């Protein structure tokens, strides 16, 4: 596109009104045209000033009280509010997981050994609905991410619910690592939804009391034998 045509687009570009292809043309041209860069700077000043043209209103007084309340909730327990709201859903989820687990395994193989193992795991999972919780906090890669782990030290299963996790690229999943004496055992794989939320049933090779911490990394689908990327979220057990 020629200089004159791009120059005509500068006012709309400063306002954010250019369509995608126009935007690309303008940005390409700006790299080599000082005149258009100066013109853009002028129109950006105008666009900034437009921010102050909204008719003046007084905000409702309760907004200050509401903000105080929300800050108090955030600081007392960063995930408290959402966890409480979801507690009922989580219990239902636990029960559903147990039922699904038991039903599937029952029809898959009726051997006594498996039935005994299912019974032990089912008992452990149901107990998790009332289990103590551990809060997990996102690392530098995902400072907003957090999670709640429901577990009993004597059990080998636990439930983890995570929030605000970054979305992983195609071909990748999250992998849970249970850490003991410098060793890392895989606790399971999971993905998160568009809001960055996900729930995973963790199965550990040893009772959870033997682990000192838990971490989550991004790994290829199918999992890795050991972590291959930085920790996204974690916490001490």
């Amino acid at each position, binding site marked *: 596109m020629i200089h004159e045509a791009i120059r005509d687009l500068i006012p709309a570009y400063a306002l954010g009104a250019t369509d995608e292809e126009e935007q690309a043309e303008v940005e390409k041209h700006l790299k080599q045209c000082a005149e258009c860069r100066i013109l853009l700077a002028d129109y950006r000043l105008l666009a900034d000033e437009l921010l102050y043209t909204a008719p003046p*209103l007084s905000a409702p007084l309760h907004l200050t009280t509401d903000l105080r309340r929300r800050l108090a909730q955030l600081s007392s327990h960063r995930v408290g509010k959402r966890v409480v709201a979801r507690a009922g859903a989580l219990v239902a989820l636990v029960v559903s997981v147990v039922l699904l687990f038991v039903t599937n395994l029952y029809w898959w193989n009726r051997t006594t050994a498996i039935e005994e193992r299912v019974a032990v795991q089912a008992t452990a999972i149901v107990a998790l609905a009332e289990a103590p919780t551990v809060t997990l906090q996102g690392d530098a890669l995902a400072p907003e991410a957090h999670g709640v782990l429901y577990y009993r030290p004597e059990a080998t299963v636990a439930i983890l619910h995570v929030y605000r996790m970054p979305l992983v690229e195609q071909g990748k999943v999250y992998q849970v690592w249970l850490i003991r004496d410098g060793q890392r055992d895989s606790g399971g794989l999971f993905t998160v939804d568009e809001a960055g939320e996900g729930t995973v049933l963790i199965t550990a090779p040893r009772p959870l009391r033997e682990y000192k911490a838990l971490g989550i990394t991004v790994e290829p689908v199918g999992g890795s034998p050991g972590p291959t990327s930085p920790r996204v979220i974690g916490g001490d057990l």
Partner: protein
Amino acid sequence: MADPGPDDAVLLQRVANGDEDALLLLHTRYVNLVYSMAMHVLRDTFLAEEVTQDVFLKLWQKSEHYDPRRGRFATWLLSVTRFAAIDRLRYEGRHFVPSSEPPNREEASIEDWRQQIDWDQGQQLRMLLWNLPPDQRELIELAYFGGMTHRDLAEHLHLPLGTVKSRLRLGLQKLRALWFEETSEDQKHYDP
């Protein structure tokens, strides 16, 4: 004269360190400005309140996103509010409705507002918007406060794309000329 309190940069540093009182001071200072922008875009009290609170909570969680080298804090905060309100407008499946009434000069006398940074200049510009032909002003408002591109505007107003482009360009060129004239006059007035 009342103590203006700590400046924005100091308060933002305190917010980054987790100081809730600092955030509440910023809230007191800018809540009217943020709420007015949200209301202007959304024209709905409930939605505007939600967007206002979300903007301040975002500031609490991500105050480091503001880069002082890129301009004043108030401008950045209003820009964040504008985008948040436009996002909400789209989420609700609504369109921005341009102002139908010219500015009321009495609004400018609201005492709380006279303290606001850039308030006077912004309201002068608002008056100038109303000096433009209505079809040009409507396009500028729809583009800026409604988040519409050339193509969106053509579709929304059932106008040919070329007409939208030239009308928006002419409106902005005229507004810029009026604005520079106005600010030059102010400059003359203040220069010794």
